[in-house]
């Protein structure tokens, strides 16, 4: 082995602390890149495979009741490849051992006893129900698991007012219910919502659908125009109470899953490169500074006859070892965490399998970029030193010229102690270096703030959604629209204290070429349970005949209060009206529009109707209430706001704490990488100066103060910048998360800034203190004896 190679390895060992600190920063960048890419690709690939293998439909439509023969007409529409008709109903379920009610979505299976041709359920256990049976059912696997059902177990379902005992013959997963969300809820709750596949004959006879269907799904042939097919289908179904066909984009499960994957993709394509860039910048800077310290040695190598190429290679290799260490750590942790996170998501979504293709390109790109940044940092410094004539490089750098400036006079006026003066002077002497360190630390603060805001935002969302907007305990869903008198039936149920009715009407809102499908919520004036809240937390009352819309709708359709908006009703008489936007309200989940009951019944020239009842309950009567609604034919389901909040908190909190944890680690590693190295470099650069002070009689702590003081001063100065960048990054994050399904407000209380600052400053202090110990061990004699 050549002497130079030995030197390389020994130098690497000597610098291992510093190398490790940088390597970890680099590893973080690589890990986040791999995690984000790997995870998003795995979900994307898995979803695509599941959809393709199980014939996920392209178009869905619902009607009140259409005759079977219509199906052949639908199949014959241009662009339609396969059309399948089925019966679909929401059922109230009574599950053994569960006092609260549950809801089931019943879907008919073909008479032939075969699987459907579209949205094919993937059988997980057992078998399909016998097409002739009147008491057999196949359920979705998560529902069975959440309720502890085995094949052969039974439960009861209320079908057209009649209780039926059903036996589970099998479990399945369906591409249609990757994200199985029950009516009126925001989050999947597998315990209280199940998919029930039942024989066609049994469902049809129970719901008076013999020879008829109320749901149709289509797959399109290659090159077909989806909107044209939808239009043609709507025309065909309109006489039978069609409520408007839609494509995959509005299929609930698909909308959620693709939104989630899109967010992951955003995260993968915006943030990790940003973080990677940050870590690359830091690594480049720190390696540059470490190698700048080797200036005299570079001069010596040149004096001895080593070429620039030799020297460059030597220091690039030194930096390269660090980078390789970082890349390997990043690859290993990134690969593991991508797989783990993808697995978590695959469970959260109900995928039957996970397709995890290793993204070799992500590995290659991250590795290459990591090595490159380290090499460039090293090269810059090494070549800078090699460009000097060896005589100059070997002589200690001329003592920096400290000028007496205005600032100096200002500092003198402050009568600072000598060590404090040294700190300030050195800050002004190397402003660029101080600035870079400050930028690095501010990025660490920013990273923490940019994800730290999520928990505050989510709390605010939950507070507005559950404590302020929806103050009812339970939402009862009616099987179909009822007159206001239904409220009296609900009031008669045990334990009911307050009752208010709401009507949900599917419509299409249009403003010029912009349009959105959503439901208008109609409420009685002065409703106190379900209310609309504006940005400042005030209750918004609708006065007059106008339409109140949510901020997201206002943004998407470019509407402001006072603007006219076209409203096409997708049910009933399917009339189109022009209404005025009466106001804008904040709502973070989904799209929404609101009207008063008077305005709606005036508009539709019909008696007021309701489709749900919001109820507050006497907690003591809870059980009696639950038993009662299971036997009430009027009601197809009950959504518990408290359960919804609990499942929301559980889902979201876990995600958020994983994110917060991950990014805190990143911020901490960046801080350590920066401050530990800065301190070590300072110590090397100023060893003689500090040793001289010790010899002059300054105590260890007085000398340490210079080291700690300068670095902590920079760290403190970095905070405001960090807050600013964090605020910006947070906005970027929030914007990348906004979708029709939910939006995330920027809520950044002072505590979020404070937390980030405390963590970063604390970490910085700990890192410097680690280096400070070296001052105690400073060998005064040898430091003064050797040349710098």
């Amino acid at each position, binding site marked *: 082995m*050549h*002497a*130079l190679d*030995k*030197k390389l390895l*020994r*130098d690497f060992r*000597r610098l291992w602390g510093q190398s490790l600190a940088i390597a970890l920063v680099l590893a973080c960048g690589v890990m986040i890149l791999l995690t984000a890419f790997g995870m998003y690709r795995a979900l994307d690939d898995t979803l695509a495979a599941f959809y393709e293998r199980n014939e996920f439909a392209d178009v869905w439509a619902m009607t009140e009741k259409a005759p079977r023969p219509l199906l052949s007409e639908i199949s014959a529409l241009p662009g339609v490849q396969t059309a399948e008709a089925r019966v679909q109903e929401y059922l109230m379920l009574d599950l053994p051992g569960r006092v609260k009610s549950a809801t089931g979505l019943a879907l008919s299976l073909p008479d032939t006893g075969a699987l459907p041709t579209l949205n094919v359920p993937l059988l997980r256990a057992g078998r399909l129900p016998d097409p002739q049976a009147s008491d057999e059912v196949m359920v979705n696997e998560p529902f069975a698991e959440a309720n502890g059902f085995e094949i052969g177990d039974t439960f009861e379902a209320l079908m057209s007012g009649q209780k039926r005992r059903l036996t589970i013959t099998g479990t399945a997963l369906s591409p249609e219910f990757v994200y199985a969300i029950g009516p009126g809820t925001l989050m999947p709750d597998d315990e209280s919502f199940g998919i029930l596949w039942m024989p066609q004959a049994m469902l049809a006879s129970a719901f008076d659908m013999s020879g008829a269907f109320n749901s149709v799904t289509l797959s399109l042939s290659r090159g077909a125009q989806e909107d044209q097919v939808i239009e043609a289908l709507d025309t065909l179904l309109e006489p039978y109470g069609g409520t408007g066909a839609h494509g995959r984009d509005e299929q609930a499960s698909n909308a959620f899953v693709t939104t989630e994957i899109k967010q992951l993709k955003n995260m993968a394509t915006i943030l990790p490169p940003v973080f990677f860039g940050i870590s690359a910048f830091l690594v480049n800077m720190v390696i540059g500074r470490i190698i700048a310290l080797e200036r*005299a*040695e570079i001069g*010596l*190598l*040149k*004096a*001895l*006859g*080593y*070429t*620039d190429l*030799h020297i460059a290679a030597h220091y690039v290799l030194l930096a390269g070892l660090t980078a390789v260490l970082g890349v390997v750590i990043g690859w290993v942790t990134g690969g593991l965490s991508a797989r783990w996170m993808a697995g978590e998501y695959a469970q959260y979504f109900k995928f039957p399998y996970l397709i995890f293709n290793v993204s070799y390109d992500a590995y290659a790109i991250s590795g290459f970029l990591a090595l490159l940044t380290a090499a460039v940092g090293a090269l810059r410094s090494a070549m800078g030193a090699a460009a000097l*004539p*060896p*005589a*100059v490089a*070997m002589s200690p750098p001329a003592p920096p*010229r400290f000028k007496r400036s205005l600032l100096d006079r200002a500092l003198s006026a402050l009568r600072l102690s000598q060590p404090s003066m040294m700190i300030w002077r050195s800050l002004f002497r190397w402003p660029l270096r101080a600035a870079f360190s400050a930028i690095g630390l501010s990025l660490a603060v920013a990273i923490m703030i940019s994800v730290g805001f999520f928990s505050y935002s989510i709390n605010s969302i939950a507070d507005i959604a559950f404590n302020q907007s929806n103050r009812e305990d339970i939402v009862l869903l009616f099987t179909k629209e009822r007159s206001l008198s239904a409220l009296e039936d609900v009031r008669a149920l045990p334990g009911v204290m307050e009752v208010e009715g709401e009507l949900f009407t599917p419509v299409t809102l249009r403003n010029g070429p912009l349009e959105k499908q959503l439901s208008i919520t109609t409420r009685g004036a002065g409703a106190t349970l379900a209310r609309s809240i504006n940005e400042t937390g005030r209750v918004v009352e609708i006065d007059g005949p106008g339409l109140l819309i949510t901020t997201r709708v206002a943004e998407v359709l470019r509407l402001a209060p006072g603007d006219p908006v076209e409203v096409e009703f997708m049910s009933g008489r399917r009339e189109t009206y022009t209404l005025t936007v009466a106001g804008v309200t904040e709502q973070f989940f989904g799209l929404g529009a609101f009207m008063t009951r008077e305005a709606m019944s005036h508009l539709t020239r019909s008696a007021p109707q309701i489709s749900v009842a919001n109820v507050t309950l006497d907690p003591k009567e809870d059980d009696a209430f639950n038993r009662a609604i299971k036997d009430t034919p009027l009601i197809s389901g009950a959504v518990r706001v408290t359960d919804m909040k609990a499942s929301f908190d559980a889902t979201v909190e876990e995600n958020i704490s994983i994110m917060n944890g991950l990014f805190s680690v990143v911020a901490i590693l960046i801080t350590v990488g920066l401050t530990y190295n800065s301190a070590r470099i300072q110590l090397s650069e100023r060893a003689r100066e500090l040793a001289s002070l010790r010899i002059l009689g300054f105590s260890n702590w007085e000398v340490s103060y210079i080291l700690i003081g300068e670095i902590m001063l920079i760290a403190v100065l970095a905070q405001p910048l960090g807050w600013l960048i964090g605020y910006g990054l947070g906005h970027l994050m929030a914007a990348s998360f906004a979708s029709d399904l939910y939006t995330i407000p920027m809520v950044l209380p002072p505590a979020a800034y404070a937390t980030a600052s405390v963590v970063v400053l604390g970490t910085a202090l700990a890192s410097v203190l680690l280096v400070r110990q070296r001052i105690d061990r400073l060998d005064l004699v*040898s430091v003064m004896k*050797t*040349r710098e």
Partner: protein
Amino acid sequence: MPEAVFHTEKLVKTYRTGGAEVHALAGVDLDLYASELTVLLGPSGSGKSTLLNILGGLDHATSGKVMFRDLDLTVQSDRALTRFRRDHVGFVFQFYNLVPSLTARENVQMVTDIAPNPMRAEEALERVGMSDRIDHFPAELSGGQQQRVAIARAIAKRPEVLLCDEPTGALDSSTGVQVLEAIREINEDLGTTAIVITHNAAIQAMAHRVVRFQDGNIASVATNDTRIAPSEIVW
């Protein structure tokens, strides 16, 4: 007349510090001959190190000419100067300049790894009497021992010229004598041209020629008719 190894004409080196100009070398004309041992004397700041650095290709002259045999050093590229140092020059610095992370042997190997016709590192160390400390790191050696390793490193490539900047400056007299002895041996055994800068007037007695510097110029050149061995030098 013996062959000139180095030949300078009107050699000028000017440093510009802040507003002031310092003429470290103010037009030096000098010839140095093959196999001679030359001692450079002169007060601090008179330009000795500057001259040595330029002769060794470690620094550029501001104006004037420096010839190494037929090679005009003033017009050489950085790459060519590197080659020149690697093939022909051995340096000994006042502050040893050993690489702290390499042992004595490895410090010498730094040079033998890249020189065209080196001796073995062990042999070079033996010549300076360091055979028994071959695997020690610089931190484990005394100043004189470090300087002897530095000399071993300089001679290991069998250089044509050996340039020593105050090799004994940091050493006591008996260690200094050992170091000078090593330099004289190289000069005599291998015929290496040696230039030694010193503040110690007593050392001039071992030289063939003595060049005195004053304010960036040569004040006098003297030839010693009788030389004495380093061991007889007292200071």
